[in-house]
């Protein structure tokens, strides 16, 4: 109900790069888009987030709680993204990175409380003053997710977020990410080429293109 892709297709020089996609993701659900590299799954994600390259044209609609996002600029869609890289701002401490995401009209004291609470859920209590580059890969990934969620997005996109973590970490971070999405109760769209990334019981969509 909450995130719907209706007849969504992306055209490059007039021809669609995959068959039209129809998709409904309910709050708290994670739908996975699978496919080999080059099938257009990242392009689909950038269409939903609003960062589609100008060489492509978008057809169909992207509905978020009933309103069409397709013509809105990225920053007005209220859709969060989690990337492969943590992309933490290297010149700010952890608290600064997280505070950057919290919406305005929150008092400083309140912000600090929110940050402390978020760090606790990730098992990173007391990390406020730490330099991002002193964190391990797994810790960075968790902070990055917290940052995306603190902006209170209405939906979350995951662009191969686990692909750069090592094997032992992957399972842990995956669980953390999925549980946070459940807790926030927002729809999420995951793009991956690794079948093990798919959450249990989640819907899986394979991007195809009919030959000819």
């Amino acid at each position, binding site marked *: 109900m909450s995130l719907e892709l209706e007849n969504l297709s992306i055209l490059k020089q007039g021809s669609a790069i995959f068959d039209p996609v129809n998709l409904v993701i309910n709050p708290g659900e994670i739908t996975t888009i699978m496919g080999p590299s080059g099938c257009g799954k990242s392009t689909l994600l950038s269409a939903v987030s609003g960062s589609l390259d100008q060489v492509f044209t978008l057809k169909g609609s992207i509905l978020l709680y009933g309103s069409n996002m397709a013509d809105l600029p*990225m920053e007005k869609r209220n859709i969060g*993204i989690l990337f492969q890289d943590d992309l933490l*701002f290297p010149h700010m401490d952890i608290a600064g990175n997280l*505070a950057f995401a*919290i919406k305005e009209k929150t008092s400083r004291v309140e912000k600090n409380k929110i940050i402390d609470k978020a760090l606790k859920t990730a098992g990173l209590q007391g990390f406020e003053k730490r330099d991002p580059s002193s964190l391990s890969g797994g810790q960075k990934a968790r902070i990055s997710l917290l940052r995306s969620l603190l902006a209170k997005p209405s939906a979350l996109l995951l662009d191969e977020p686990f692909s750069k973590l090592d094997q032992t970490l992957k399972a842990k971070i995956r669980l953390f990410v999925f549980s946070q999405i459940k807790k926030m109760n927002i729809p999420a769209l995951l793009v991956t080429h690794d079948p093990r990334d798919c959450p249990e019981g989640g819907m899986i969509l394979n991007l195809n293109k009919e030959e000819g």
Partner: protein
Amino acid sequence: MSGQAKSRIFPVVVISFFCVTVIAGLFGTLLPSLNYLPVIGYTRISLSAWFDFFSYPGIQTSFFVTLFSGITASVGVVSLAFLFITFSYGTALWKFFEKILSPVLSIPHAAFAVGFGFLIAPSGWLIRMISPALTGFTMPPDWIILNDPAGISLTIALVIKEFPFLIMVTMGALGQLDIKETLLVGRALGYTKEQIWLKILIPRLYPHLRLSIFAVIAYSLSVVDMAIILGPSSPPSLAVLILRWFNDPDVSFKLLASAGSLFLFAIVLLSILGVYIMERAVVVFLRPWITNGKRRCFLSRLKPIIFFMGCGTLFFTAVSSVILVIWSLTWQWRFPDFLPTTWTLTFWAKGLVSSFDPVMTTLFTGVASAFIGLLLAIGCLEHEVAAGKTRTRNYTGYLHYFLYLPLLVPQITFMAGIQFLLVIMKMDGYWMSLMVSHLLFVLPYVFIALSATYLAFDERVTDQAMLLKRSYIAVLFRVKLPMLIKPILFSFAIGFSVSVAQYIPTMLVGAGRFSTITTEVVSIASGSDRRVIAVYALIQQCLPMTMYAMAIILPKILYYNRKGMQV
């Protein structure tokens, strides 16, 4: 491989060259300021020169004019550059700037100042454009626009001339930031592009630009050639006043000049310190603003104004060149007319003949200093590459700290000292001394221009060639340098244009025995016939342009049949 191991001689020589000249120059200025200059018979140390300096009539006005024009221009150009990149990055305008930047930068300060003066003067082109239709003027108004006592026209000209420089440095630094990703993350968190630039990217960009900004401050406070042409004249800004004292027939004025130029250096140092303190304060006070969560930005309303100003700098630069061309071809041009009534080539014919000697001096000095600068820069960069391969100590790494040294100390301060030392060593007035003094300013620019592309060279090509050829020198000269011909010629052209633009080193180290096209332009700029000045300014402007054109065309000719070299 021994060639590479020995290559540390390059950074060592360059660093020593910078340190020795700057320190010796400062020392050579300090002694005369303390009344010690045996050449003209002053041997008793005293502070009298300093007292004379501070009690010189009008010195306060000179001080305030210097401070006002220098600080206003620096603050103005830095704010403009930051706001311009905030609003225009990724737009067609930004891409246009990328293309147009080098020809704009190659215009010598003096030539630009002359053209700018022809534009804004009461009888200048701008007023002619709207007269008499809008103004009703049939005679030039008696406004003091040019050489205005507060130095406003100088300040504006400084902003226009330094804006493209800061944009160029910014473009170089942008490669070190992950701009695309940061913009994506920020926008996914709901921030507009402008807010991401102001809150995240500019704070990260600033450390890369700090030294260039300091150099802009030092330059704006101590500029001489532009200040002679556009700045106030009685009293003039400090740097101009100091140069007048140096050239005074009464040699005792040299003591006064030394004290003054050290005072100017102190102003520069204090201003840089002030900016550094401000930077620290801003970091502390703006932290809450960065994380206040506001996604929209009131500054967005400035967007049209900033675009207008950014394009305005280009407009003024372009029109300043156009007006030079027009004046150089003018025979008769009555006041409110938009264009001359009769045209002539007479002044070109005369100017080309009479400027021949200065042009030759400019050409030889420029080519020699740019060539030596290039050799030293390549040597230093080769050392850096070799150190990276063998994981040995990289002396060129230290060079980055010293590179800006000649650009942060006012030229007039240490060039004066060097002149005194050269006189003592009886080496003043030699062409070689002149050329080396130019090299001091040419080398930093050549190095900065070349280093990024040079270090990005795919070393596997060199390794492969080494396996085939087994001679480091042969591989360097027959494979690597030819492949890098474009950036090499380009930084040569930059070095050449820096040399052409030098005014103070030629005036002081040349000891009056050498005149370049630049010293000629500045000396005739006030008082001579506009048509003659225009011809000289255009000749000055054409020299670097020609070199840039060669840097673009030559690789195309040399490698016309090699598609891989045409990128």
